[in-house]
């Protein structure tokens, strides 16, 4: 089994994986693990972040045939991760997903503003939160965000604008 080229595109890696090349799948996971984990953490994923990241990748590979590339692989993956987080919360129901007390201690050295921003992001409506994180945290273009979230570019811009406005009010 040949190792994928370092500069191989997501499409090339996906095609290699579908042809049975496990190294291609490994490379895809390596490239996107930290971005996915950061995104899910900012959305409030709890102590099971590792498991959630793995579940998101697993779901992505299982439905890799539906990836068309309009939004880019990372945006597509992040939305799958977001849905996995929703499912986890649904299953957990009343169980608290965020052990805030413990995390506050862990994050004592973090900048105060960053902590407040994290809490602010969690207060945003889901669509505003996703658009804000995909744009501001992940640095994705509005076109990719709109494709991944199945909305229009204009709507994505409006959600971002409202998210920023609301966060500024929370943080002032």
């Amino acid at each position, binding site marked *: 089994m040949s190792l994928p080229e370092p500069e191989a595109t997501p499409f090339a890696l996906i095609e290699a994986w*579908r*042809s*049975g090349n*496990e190294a291609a*799948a*490994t490379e895809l*996971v*390596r490239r996107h*693990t*930290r*971005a996915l*984990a*950061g*995104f*899910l*953490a*900012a*959305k409030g994923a709890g102590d099971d*972040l*590792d498991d959630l*990241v*793995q579940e998101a*990748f*697993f779901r992505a*590979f299982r439905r890799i045939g539906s990836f068309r590339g309009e939004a880019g692989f990372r945006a597509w993956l992040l939305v799958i991760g977001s849905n996995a987080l929703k499912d986890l919360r649904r299953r957990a129901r009343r169980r608290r997903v965020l052990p805030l007390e413990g995390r506050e201690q862990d*994050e004592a050295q*973090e*900048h105060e*503003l*960053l902590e407040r*921003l*994290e809490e602010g*992001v969690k207060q945003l409506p889901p669509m505003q939160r996703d658009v*804000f*994180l995909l744009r*501001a*945290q992940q*640095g994705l273009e509005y076109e990719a965000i709109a494709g991944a979230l199945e909305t229009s570019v204009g709507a994505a811009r409006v959600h971002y604008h409202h998210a*920023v406005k609301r*966060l*500024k009010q929370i*943080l*002032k």
Partner: protein
Amino acid sequence: MIEDRDLEGLAPRLGRRRAGEVDPEATATAVVGRLRSERPVVHWWRLPAARRMVAAAVLILAAGLYVARSGPDRPVGQVLVPVPVVLDELAAAELVEIIDSLDVDGPVYELVPASLHDLSERQLERLLENMEG
């Protein structure tokens, strides 16, 4: 009052510390291991490229038959060996069985075109009509 640029400067750091605790190598190992355990065995004839090649071979053979059987001494458009199948849905073994069942003899092989490009527009049209039944 926090400015937009301050907010956008902070945002990339959201979740970074916790993301740093997730090991990409361990994640890759776990994900690929789970995929491997749940992935069905893929036979070579199930691979898209192999299936396309076999399907193309059958199509070209059928085209050759069409050309051979619609010569001056036969009614135009009559295909004696129809290919009433969705090629992409067949396994290689099934395609081989179909090929074996074709009544192919010497003269036909001589007339098999190099590709579908060797067929006239009319011949191609009639071939597709017959294949669609």
